[in-house]
């Protein structure tokens, strides 16, 4: 079964067409990258997948559930992380994880928090208020929160933003291991092209709300005759401006 099926998805605001008739699928166990410049429609698409935003038209099915009618059943089995959304600053890291563990009805929560603390090196941070952490530490906590319910589908917006190269690499390895272990599907929006090349099976290139190209990172690089995905991204971004 596909983790995500999107058919003819459209979102228009009074003065903007944010997403313009896009369709795609993400198989269970796959990793899909959404690439595009600012305003390309990545955040809008993710928001619609999460049920935060109602599409103007089109259909979204997540983990077998129609998001328009049954989003809570899907939300129980998915999770999300973004450095642009914070966790309550006055709560300690452990309290934050406990709140989300309860929200996602996680069994043996204490044990799960200990597991995540070990995986993300959060042991020394558990008792510290989330607001006192560095940007990189906050990103690690947000990622731990996103895995608290062992989701079948993980939506990640810039998952390694603010992380130093060593920690960023560690997190990417963790995500690869998590996918191997659980066969979870991952949808990733990132501006880090090396990260997308490493993690993603398929990449959707978005521009002005449309999918302008798609394929495996290798196939896209070959099609554009470039050396890496960053050059492909620049080619597409500058295509009409040239």
């Amino acid at each position, binding site marked *: 079964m596909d983790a995500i099926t999107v058919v003819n998805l459209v979102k228009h605001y009074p003065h903007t067409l944010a997403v313009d008739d896009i369709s795609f699928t993400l198989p269970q166990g796959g990793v899909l990258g959404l690439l595009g410049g600012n305003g390309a429609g990545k955040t809008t698409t993710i928001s619609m997948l999460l049920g935060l935003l109602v599409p103007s038209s089109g259909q979204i099915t997540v983990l077998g559930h129609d998001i328009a009618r049954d989003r809570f059943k899907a939300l129980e089995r998915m999770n999300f992380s973004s450095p642009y959304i*914070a966790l309550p600053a006055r709560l300690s890291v452990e309290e934050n994880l406990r709140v989300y563990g309860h929200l*996602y009805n996680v069994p043996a929560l204490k044990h799960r928090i200990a597991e995540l603390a070990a995986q993300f090196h959060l042991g020394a941070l558990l008792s510290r208020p989330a607001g006192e952490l560095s940007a990189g530490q906050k990103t690690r906590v947000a990622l731990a929160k996103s895995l608290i319910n062992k989701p079948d589908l993980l939506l990640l917006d810039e998952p390694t933003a603010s992380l130093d190269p060593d920690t960023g690499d560690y997190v990417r390895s963790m995500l690869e291991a998590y996918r191997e272990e659980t066969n979870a599907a991952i949808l990733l929006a990132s501006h880090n092209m090396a990260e997308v090349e490493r993690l993603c099976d398929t990449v959707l290139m978005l521009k002005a709300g449309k999918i302008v190209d798609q394929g495996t990172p290798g196939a896209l690089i070959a099609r554009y005759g470039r050396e890496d995905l960053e050059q492909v991204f620049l080619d597409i971004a500058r295509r009409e401006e040239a």
Partner: protein
Amino acid sequence: MKTSLRRIWAMIYRHLAVYRRSWPRVAEIAYWPTLNLLIWGFTASYIGHLHASPGAQTASALIAGVLLWEITLRGQLGVTLGFLEEIWSRNLGHIFVSPLRPAELLAALLSVSLLRTLAGLFPATIIAYLLYHYNILLLGPVLLLFFVNLLFMGWWIALGIVSLLFRYGAGAEALAWTIAFGITPVACVYYPASALPGWLQPVAMALPAAHVFAGMRAGLFQHAADWPDLAQASALNLGWMLLAILIFGAEFRRARVRGALISIGE
């Protein structure tokens, strides 16, 4: 749709954890009820000394009015501040993509509001007894009906404010602090509705508070429960609560269409 007590507890725990770590927030809960009681309590004592018997009754009505009206004010603030807390901490994006249903979020906010109201009123009630020899519990079991009705009124006002926050974003934050206070003149806390100009009396009578306070005065002055007024207060509360829930539901859906859940804090 299956309601989960565990999810409701998650959100109650989230707010209790904030209070555990912030003594200024705990102090704020009791500060305003206590301050109001001190101001009005000394005023009531002064009136009581000036006019012997009717003055003593007026003094009792003033102190009871202050304590009971705080139920509505604290009840409303408890809900709206709880919601604003999520906006201030930029946490709504995480909450609304979790399996938490809006009704569960509301249940948690109402529970926190109840706890805040009780915690805020407890010191004021003790001070009223110690300083002014006024024991509000002498109103008898009917006090419970006053409490429930006034708390409900605070809650539906709060739902209206949260709906405005969905529509206008954090820019409408000031309403959380002002709307219930603005209603005070027509809530008839310290005087009967007949003391208002004729054109304003229907407004007062449409609010449960005017009926509750009429019942309170009947209890204090005639030592009898004013059941018709209490029944009207309860019926009005149900009507207003239903309307507030419908507006909340409509504004929540509208916010999901406009994308306001993503940008509500901006």
